[in-house]
């Protein structure tokens, strides 16, 4: 390609023009810890990515190249590219503000405490470890405020403290620790997923050992008598 590149000027050159297939990928990633699993309400973001599969030769497009999407001859979205893989041009991830996700707690069944002891630094003390397994039910409601139907992927990832029991509907794909749900939501409607989870709640308290507690009480009583 031959061109003139004058000093202190910008030049614009045509590079390629081709048809492409457009795929809009929306994802919700959900993960809890022992604290957040008991929150009354959590809101999650829906991340959207535009994937363009180009016809013809692949073009290597640098990351962060500006991209403008036009619909009906008018620009409606300004974003950047994140990566190109072969003929696929993938945009950066954006938060889709037209889809809201509310995650509410429905039920908590507290399990029974199991008490075990661990050594403390002071030989007169020990650490009382209270472990219980709570069963928690949460409802994730997704609202589509767009004027078209959407497909999205909800991914619940279990952690060492919060594990999956069952869900309504069943996951579309399970690849532990990931539970994937492919959800279709018509325009201006809501969809939901109910998750039954088990949370391992561990509380640690350092206490004086009972034998030392009695000796301590005796010493205090003797002091009072005097």
């Amino acid at each position, binding site marked *: *390609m*031959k061109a003139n590149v004058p*000093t202190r000027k*910008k030049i*614009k050159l045509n590079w390629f023009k081709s048809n492409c297939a*457009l795929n809009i990928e929306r994802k919700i990633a959900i993960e809890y810890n022992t604290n957040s699993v008991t929150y009354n309400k959590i809101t999650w973001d829906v991340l959207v990515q535009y994937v363009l599969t180009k016809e013809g030769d692949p073009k290597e497009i640098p990351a962060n190249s500006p*991209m403008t999407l036009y619909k009906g001859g008018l620009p409606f979205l300004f974003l950047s590219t994140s990566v190109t893989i072969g003929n696929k041009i993938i945009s950066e991830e954006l938060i889709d503000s037209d889809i809201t996700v509310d995650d509410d707690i429905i039920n908590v069944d507290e399990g029974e405490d199991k008490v075990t002891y661990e050594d403390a630094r002071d030989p007169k003390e020990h650490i009382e470890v209270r472990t219980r397994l709570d069963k928690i039910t949460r409802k994730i409601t997704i609202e589509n405020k767009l004027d078209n139907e959407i497909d999205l992927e909800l991914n619940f990832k279990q952690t060492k403290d919060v594990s999956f029991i069952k869900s309504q509907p069943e996951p579309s794909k399970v690849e532990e620790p990931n539970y994937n749900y492919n959800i279709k939501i018509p325009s201006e409607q809501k969809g939901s997923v109910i998750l039954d989870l088990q949370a391992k709640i561990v509380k640690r308290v350092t206490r004086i050992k009972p034998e030392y507690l009695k000796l301590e009480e005796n010493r205090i009583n003797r002091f009072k008598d005097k």
Partner: protein
Amino acid sequence: MLIDPKVNKLIIFNGGGGIVERQIKLSLNQGLNKFEIANVPASFDPNSADIQLEFINPGDKDSITLQQTIVSLPDRNTSQQIIDREKSAATSIISYAIDFTRELREKVSNICEASSYRTFADMKGVFDFIISASKVGEIIVKIIYFIADLRIKWQTTLQVDIKNDGKNAQIEGFLVVDNQTGFSYENVELGFAIFELPSTDMEIQYDNFGEAEEEMAQQAISSLSKQKRTQRMRNLML
């Protein structure tokens, strides 16, 4: 002898800078022939500057040889003083000029603007070479050098026109070359590469190393995270 070889090819990096290829046909006298290349920017990399000889007559291989190249960059302090003086002169011209005619005004404002943008990279570097010839002859000389000037770079912009079905689109890609350097390139073969010139972060860190101990520890940690990664230049298929 001062020569100004034409820039044939310019490969621009998206992270700034590029590779310049220049070419000229030269007539040689018997003995040593010294040439000075004009219009070499001070942003050129003296270590990677290269001269390649292309023989017009294959029989000249033994009689014509490149004896040496001589490269140097202008002194930074002196160059900066010259730039500052030019800038203040430009400011004075603009402040006191009242009755330039339209044509003159454009010329003067262009000169003033150019001087206000001038940096060390717009000064001239020295790139000379000596060719030894045992007989009179002609040769094509190819000159190649890197330019480490972040003010010349390229980026792509994409326009995606989504069809009514929402599943198909037409994509149009453009290459935007931004040349804010003081050098123009006329009718050159352009190449585009995805590459970023290595930064000098590590040098800056070592300069500051004499300070407080805590700061040293922090810098050591940050330098660990800034361990160099491989970076291979990728040419764009046009």
